[in-house]
């Protein structure tokens, strides 16, 4: 290092301390690698260990990794495995109950999390109809992954697809009726 820079850094101990702290953090942060196994149970064990050793911030990526691994061996049993993993995550304080529900239902339930709300449809859903439908469309592709590709539940996925179409039709009619001033 340039001796001049070192001298000036020594003049400002605060800056030096900050740099040293950052360097320390960088050296202790785990790599948080993705699971390399193709076996879902082993992958879940690996992910649980990683999440428990400082990789909590990578939860989304790990969840995605697990889904990808499960796609390689689709079976109805996978629903339970993911549910238990999410319950464990909640128990460990990695996720709140709401978050765990969101993660599960978005992928493995026929009903759409995008259609949640505490107010009536005329005042809440209709003014945001396009956004709600767009969110539902995105969620449908997650359901395709969770229900069809991971859990081998085509019936569930087709029901979700039909539900999306029915919601589209019913919302179109209901929102037209809500705005009609007759």
């Amino acid at each position, binding site marked *: 290092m340039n001796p001049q820079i070192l001298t000036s850094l020594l003049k400002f101990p605060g800056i030096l301390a900050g740099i040293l702290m950052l360097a320390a953090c960088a050296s202790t942060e785990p790599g948080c690698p993705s699971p390399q196994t193709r076996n879902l149970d082993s992958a879940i064990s690996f992910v649980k260990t990683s999440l428990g050793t400082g990789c909590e911030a990578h939860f989304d990526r790990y969840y995605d990794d697990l889904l990808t691994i499960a796609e390689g061996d689709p079976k109805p049993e996978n629903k339970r495995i993911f549910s238990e993993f999410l319950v464990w995550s909640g128990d460990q304080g990695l996720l709140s109950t709401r978050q765990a529900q969101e993660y599960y239902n978005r992928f493995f339930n026929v*009903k759409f999390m995008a259609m949640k709300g505490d107010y009536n449809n005329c005042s809440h859903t209709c003014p945001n109809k396009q956004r709600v439908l767009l969110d539902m469309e995105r969620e449908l592709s997650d359901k395709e992954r969770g229900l069809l590709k991971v859990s081998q539940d085509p019936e569930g996925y087709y029901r979700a697809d039909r539900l999306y179409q029915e*919601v589209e039709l019913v919302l179109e009619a209901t929102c037209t009726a809500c705005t009609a001033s007759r």
Partner: protein
Amino acid sequence: MNNKRPLAIAPDPARRKATLGLLLAGMLLIVAQTVLANTPTIRLFPTTVVEDLKQTGNVARDMETGLQEVIGRLDQQQQLYVESKCDGAANDPGCQRLARQIGATYLEMLTIMEERLPDMEHTVNNTRISLERGLRNELGKKMTPWQLQETLVGKPNTSAASQSSPTLRGRSGMRLSERFKTYYQLVATSGSRGDQSLAVLASDIYLDMEETSVLIERTRQEIARATLMEQLNQSFGIITPEMMEVVGGVKTILFGDEDPHALVAGPPPGSVEQAYRSPLEQ
């Protein structure tokens, strides 16, 4: 000798199980009925809507009957016009006579429509307004999006309900009166359906009524203009392309498309395994 008779018949375990089973089944039935009775039912089809649908079907049938003969005659005259190679021979006296005949029949069609459309408009509007009120109150104001979704999904494992879902959007390729007759039948037998079917059915009929209502309004406006134009054309014996277009349009609306789209088969149903229910599921 012991003549003592047993005070009670010794309990036979098999019989006891059967009795217990029957009792349980009876209790379950009562509980199920109570639950069903307590389930809030959405009121989307009051009696007035059912009657309005029936009335609209009748008016549409009357209009079709009146127009069928005229449109048939118009088709024959057009065919004769084409076969006589009148296209591009507008100055030929015979062709001019034919064109005037076609124009007169066209005027007749417009007159019949003008007479019948107000009735049609009235009944369609009544149905639309009733459904509009029901949809706004029952689905729009009384329900949150999640409740609406739950209504549409229905209760789990109600395969009978999903099988009885109405076929939607079967508008083209169907006579107008048949369409209303189908709607009427669907609504009249709606007691056996779940709320999920009713919400979809009401939405479908309402949107159709909206469309029909706008179409009738526009047609009525056009009839006045077309009548005037044709009265002028009568003096020259001209067949305008617009005339043919209008006749084609009326035929499509009243009698359905000639070449309806083939239905595409759905994906195969999935394996009916016992579904897993997560404690996280909502």
